[in-house]
């Protein structure tokens, strides 16, 4: 019962939010005290432009996506492409050192979604299952 209803909710969320992974688990403490390890974030991805202050999930070719806040946006007048810089709330420095490409900025194509809501603690189930595959 639990598994089938979870699956229905998951598929429903994918459809509603228009994102491939509508829910992510927070894996690090870089956004504390707002998000702690084990929290779940609900994502949304629409065509609205990325603006400073939004919490985005991005993956520029790394193992796990990162959930951080946008702190700088430089949007070009003609192409509407934007250069984006992010930083975790609890980190002293911005993410420039983390970006995998030699680019000093992120582009919209690396962003999987914006965090719009959250549930505490529920993500621990996923973390336990990946850390201890025996269960």
């Amino acid at each position, binding site marked *: *019962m*639990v598994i089938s*209803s979870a699956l229905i909710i998951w598929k429903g969320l994918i459809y509603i939010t228009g994102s491939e992974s509508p829910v992510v688990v927070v894996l690090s403490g870089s956004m504390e*005290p*707002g*998000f702690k390890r084990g929290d779940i974030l609900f994502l949304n991805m629409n065509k609205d432009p990325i*603006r*400073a*202050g*939004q*919490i985005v999930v991005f993956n520029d070719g790394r193992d796990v996506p990162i959930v951080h*806040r946008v*702190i*700088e*946006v*430089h*949007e*070009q*007048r003609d192409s*509407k492409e934007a*250069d984006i810089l992010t930083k975790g*709330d609890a980190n002293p420095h*911005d993410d420039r050192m983390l970006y995998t490409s030699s680019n000093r900025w992120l582009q919209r194509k690396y962003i999987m979604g914006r*965090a*719009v*809501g*959250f*549930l*505490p603690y529920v993500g621990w189930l996923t973390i336990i299952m990946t850390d201890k595959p025996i269960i």
Partner: protein
Amino acid sequence: MHSFGYRLNGLLTFAVTILALMCVIASLSDNLNIPSPSAEIQIMNINWFQKQPKGSDEVSLRMNISADLQSLFTWNTKQVFIFVAAEYETRKNSLNQVSLWDAIIPAKERAKFWIRSSNKYRFVDHGKNLRGKEFNLTLHWHVMPKTGKMFADKIVMSGYSLPEEYI
């Protein structure tokens, strides 16, 4: 049909469903709150304004920030993340937003404050466009709940400008 496993499964599903419903209701109750925040930012001083060795303009400024954000807090609020960003346009970019300072307000009592600070993060342009530039200062807030939907909004304050020449 009445084994321990089935009963536990049924009980767990019921409990999780009720919990999820409570979280949704808690989040919906945030919509009842109509916030009325206020803020004011003054630039006390431009500390320095230079062109970096590799070519971009950079400014350091000292600000006086006062705000009353107490009306943003509800019983379901864990913290409010606020930041001040400079917004301006240049010939090449229709919008530039650079975050200068941020803070976390953990409780309603701390939401009415007055602080003097230099910019925490470097105000660096994507070029050399800052001389004489007019810009807005925006105070953004992001209400992070104990559970549920996050709310974000901002106050835009305009009328600030940078000096015509490097200092």
